[in-house]
């Protein structure tokens, strides 16, 4: 029984699907925040919206019943009761709401801006809009006190071929005492571009929120739009989406398993895993005409059917993976010098993973078994057999092992999909309409949440929440007490998205 949701007194929005959305009072808003803080529900997202009144929305899932709902609070005086004051995982989301909309979380523990680094011409660009200050305000990193501490500023431009962000380390000798990240460097204003966009253009924007998860974003966005318009993609399209999603998961896991080992200076794994990753991308290109399968998932179905010659090359690649990957797993497992770096490094405790609602391998390596393919679940996964591997050690090694197990699951899933692929159309034509939808997809990194409101054939408002929002803060916890030299290793084992987070 969805006990919390049933008890909410609020005005239900009729055309919000598939889960309820309720407009609530500040008191009810606080009550829900308390339920989340007490662990009876998990925060799924917290975002703002401009309109006649600015509004804040909070999505959550109940712990016992897995029931999902969104509550909305209108903010006529541009303020709302802070959720972050009760529940720390909401703090950065609220700081982002303040920086983007100008809505103030009353009682919030941290009033510093987020995403807005002082370089925009406009303040509160999505909401109240005001001219930015002439002088860029200084940003105060959290204070650190103690004997003989030193700070190491890193970024935004990093040494590798990776995304930009700033990390402020405070270290005592070699040991990291505190890490604080400052993100927002790749903020592109995607949500502002979404407003008023056609469904087609909005889908392209969603697909470029985080390039490594382009398929997952495509699926989550399609789910949201299809829910809003009360349509379903045809069965063949659902299977092809799953095929693409599992190929994407394989490619990322292969690449990252190798890259994690490389950050422990074990280049052999990296070299071999990169070969496997390249083979996935080539198979994807052969099957769908694009290595990353960008823009192949569209609301209503998929844009391209599986190419016949692609299936043959995919089957060849699968055979190769089945032969090679176990050897690499053995190599990982039997190399003591590598294990020495990954085991017991960068531990995330189970409580923290649960509190932050960390998804993907970050959550699953610390005992949290959430997987959007199972809960809330979406087609065609209910017709396919797969397990969600969960470990409890919470260290770099556990995150690697979760990925190894997920590779095995994805291989099995791809084989099932090829075998059971239904025939029929690959898309339905979308007729416009009005409505609101919430959509999930499980990216390789965790659950992607998309909330979309449509009017006619255009998007009124679309919010995209990357799993990284609930993983970045855990990286800061994981590195505490580890040596500075282990940061790249920890960071790669998380591989949070900068672009997906910064939007």
């Amino acid at each position, binding site marked *: 029984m969805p006990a919390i949701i049933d008890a909410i007194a609020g005005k239900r929005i009729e055309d919000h699907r598939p889960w309820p959305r309720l407009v609530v009072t500040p008191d009810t808003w606080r009550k829900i925040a308390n339920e989340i803080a007490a662990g009876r529900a998990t925060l799924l997202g917290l975002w703002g919206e401009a309109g006649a009144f600015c509004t804040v929305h909070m999505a959550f899932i109940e712990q016992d019943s897995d029931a999902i709902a969104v509550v909305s609070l209108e903010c006529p005086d541009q303020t709302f009761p802070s959720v972050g004051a009760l529940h720390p995982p909401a703090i950065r989301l609220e700081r982002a709401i303040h920086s983007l909309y100008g809505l103030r979380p009353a009682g919030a523990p941290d009033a510093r801006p987020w995403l807005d680094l002082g370089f*925009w011409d406009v303040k509160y660009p999505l909401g109240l809009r005001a001219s930015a200050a002439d002088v860029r305000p200084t940003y105060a990193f959290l204070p650190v006190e103690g004997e003989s501490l030193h700070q190491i500023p890193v970024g935004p431009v990093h040494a590798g071929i990776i995304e*930009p962000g700033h990390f402020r380390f405070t270290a005592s000798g070699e040991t990291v005492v505190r890490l604080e990240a400052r993100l927002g*460097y*790749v903020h592109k204003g995607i949500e502002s571009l979404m407003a008023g966009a056609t469904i087609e253009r909005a889908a392209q924007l969603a697909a*470029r929120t985080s*390039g*490594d998860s382009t398929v997952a974003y495509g699926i989550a966005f399609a789910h949201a739009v299809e829910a809003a318009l009360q349509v379903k993609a045809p069965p063949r399209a659902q299977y092809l989406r799953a095929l693409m999603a599992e190929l994407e998961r394989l490619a990322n896991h292969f690449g990252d398993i190798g890259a994690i080992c490389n950050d422990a200076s074990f280049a052999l794994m990296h070299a071999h895993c990169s070969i496997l990753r390249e083979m996935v991308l080539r198979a994807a290109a052969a099957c769908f005409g694009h290595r990353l399968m960008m823009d192949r998932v569209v609301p209503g179905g998929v844009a391209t059917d599986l190419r016949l010659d692609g299936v043959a090359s995919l089957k060849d690649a699968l055979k190769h993976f089945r032969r090679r990957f176990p050897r690499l797993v053995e190599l990982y497992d039997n190399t003591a010098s590598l294990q020495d770096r990954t085991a017991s490094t960068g531990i995330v405790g189970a409580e923290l993973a649960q509190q932050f609602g960390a998804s993907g391998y970050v959550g699953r390596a610390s005992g949290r078994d959430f997987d959007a393919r199972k809960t809330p679940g979406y087609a065609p996964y209910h017709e396919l057999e797969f397990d969600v591997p969960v470990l409890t050690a919470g260290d770099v090694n556990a995150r690697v092992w979760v990925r190894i197990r997920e590779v095995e699951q994805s291989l099995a899933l791809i084989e099932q999909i090829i075998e059971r692929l239904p025939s029929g159309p690959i898309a339905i034509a979308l007729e416009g309409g009005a409505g609101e939808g919430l959509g999930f997809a499980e990216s390789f990194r965790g659950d992607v949440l998309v909330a979309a409101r449509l009017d006619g054939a255009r998007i009124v408002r679309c919010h995209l929440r990357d799993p990284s929002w609930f993983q970045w803060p855990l990286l800061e916890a994981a590195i505490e007490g580890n040596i500075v030299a282990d940061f790249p290793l920890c960071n790669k084992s998380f591989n949070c998205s900068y672009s997906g987070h910064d939007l």
Partner: protein
Amino acid sequence: MRRTLFEGLTHRPMTEAPPRLDDEVLGELASQVDRAARRRLGRSLSIREVDAGSCNGCELEINALNNAFYDLERFGLRFVASPRHADILLVTGPVTKNMREALERTYRATPDPKWVVAVGDCAVDGGIFSGSYAVTGGVSNVVPVDLHIRGCPPAPTEILKGLIALLDAQRADRP
């Protein structure tokens, strides 16, 4: 581990053959890069990659240049960790306003002679992100660009082709 290492000695490499007559694209590229890079900069050319707001798709494909299939380093091209060691800046993304200053400073930190290659459709003119309050709309709005490589994202072979085109253009410029 021993088995894997020995196999590496006895099996044929994964690397797609440099100049092989039946391998038109990559084979031709291999000999061209080799010649052009040597003439311009001796034996090597160092590349510093800067993500100026990309969705990270371009980074994935640039990273792929290092895998065994493309093996970028055999051409004398390699990625370096600091702009101070670089001859080429490989810039991706529509250049967000939040990254503009960092890109300018990276450019200034790169010694002359240097070239800037903008990679990806959004690096050309902002692409799908143009019009946003948060982007400047293309790399050439911030630093001078010598070459654009289009694609969303461009495949590794396309990026390689682009680098050669740049080398050829530089060669033609010389008296």
